[in-house]
């Protein structure tokens, strides 16, 4: 279970960032979804990374050769 205040903050962020209202009956599902994703992130942080561990997608400087 992620920190409730953090979950609340993300729920507020979602509500503030969309162009319409979310019915109250759906908020609990959104809370649950956000909690799940924060827990997934917490799981990832149990696996150590070194400073040089880059994301798998590698940026390449672009030059059009056509």
């Amino acid at each position: 279970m992620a920190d409730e205040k953090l979950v609340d903050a993300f729920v507020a962020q979602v509500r503030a960032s969309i162009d319409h209202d979310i019915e109250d009956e759906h908020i609990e599902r959104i809370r649950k979804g956000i909690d799940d994703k924060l827990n997934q992130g917490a799981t990832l942080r149990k696996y150590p990374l070194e400073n040089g561990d880059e994301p798998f997608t590698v940026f390449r400087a672009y030059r059009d050769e056509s």
Partner: protein
Amino acid sequence: MTSQYKTIDELGRMLRSGDTTPTQLAREAIERLDTVGRELNAVVTITEERAMREAENAEREMKEGIDRGPLHGIPYGAKDLLAAVGYPTSWGAEPYKDQVFDEDATVVRKLRDAGAVLVAKLAMIELAGGAGYEQPNASFTGPCKVPWNQNAWSGGSSSGSGAAVASGCVPFAIGSETAGSIHSPANNCGTAGLRPTFGRVSRSGAMALSWTMDKIGPLARTAHDCGLVLDAIAGNDPADPSSMRESYHYPGTALPARPYRFAVIPSEIHSAQSEVVENFQASVEILSQYGSVEEVELPEHPYSEVTALVIRAEMASIFEDAIRSGKLRNLTAPEDRINPYTALAIPAVDYLRAMRLRAKICHDVDTLFSGYDAILTPTMPNVAPPIDQSFNAFDSSRRRRTFGSAVNITGTPGIAVMNGFGERGLPTSLCISGRTGSENTLLEIAKLYQSETDWHAKTPAI
């Protein structure tokens, strides 16, 4: 002579011997799609006008002695996330059901160039499952049924592609997989299903769900047919920056005559339904005639979490405008209307951490896979779930798919082939997975398996 349940090779022989014609095959496919296909909820659009035009072209060319190869004159269906000129491309979703594109997807164009005949756009889970559906009824065309037992769900998200092939509507169909969407319907419907290496097949003109994970591949009756289709659709495409530069051909060069090296993963087997386990062990026994079998375990990594975060974050970016505007509130499954909001809250650092861990995962999985020609697992731990239950109500304990996450996050290939029946008369399936670029080895192994068994030749009573 009926064309139902014939393989591509068999239909090709019928065409070249004059036993049938491309227009006759197209008409037979359309008639069956319009009856059986619709009964199964496998069809979105029958592309009759285009089909007859393409079939007439193929017929004329064949009469003129022009032969475009094994797919010439063969009807097929495409998952409705592939653009085809002249018809809507719905992405399985009510909010997009009328959208049209003015250019064929690269895959559709390549199949047209190979002489294949597009007869239908096939049903799929809305947005390819990217909204996090939790039940079979998650498509505007309704839940797609298994031809073997219509009280069961055909799998997803390439639902109609599996059902249409398994019911003899078409000899092959195109599906796509981000995290199980070819292998799930192949498992549930009892077809062969090939998930190619990431980048092997261009995604240009296909709905994007996850740029770094979407793959396009065939479902067919046999492994050989999957190879024939992959040969036609693979190849570099400047329109898809992630497409592989190296060319692909099937069949490839002859493999060295040596025993194969197989591996099995005990933790993937023990969690499966008992019939799935029995059929898997029988399959391994058959393949053990051709090589050694060792037990291995996947290196320790958070495969499922990395997969989930990558897909959800990329999906949230791709569909951000639709989520923010409320457009997705008209999706079919109630949970799909709500779940996408939560993806807006994934921190960028979590996505990047997932991608950093992904690099380690790719290295470690390749190191493991490099010791073997193929990793053998059940394709799914269970047979098709009931059509009218949530997945959690059916069998929540088997839903965590570590190996399925590992092969999708690494972009490695795998082929599923039917290997028996389980509960409720439903198919079970063997999955043969391997290193990046090893499709031809996997196809040869699957062909060996199918040469020793006849599960792929069985047909449902529909």
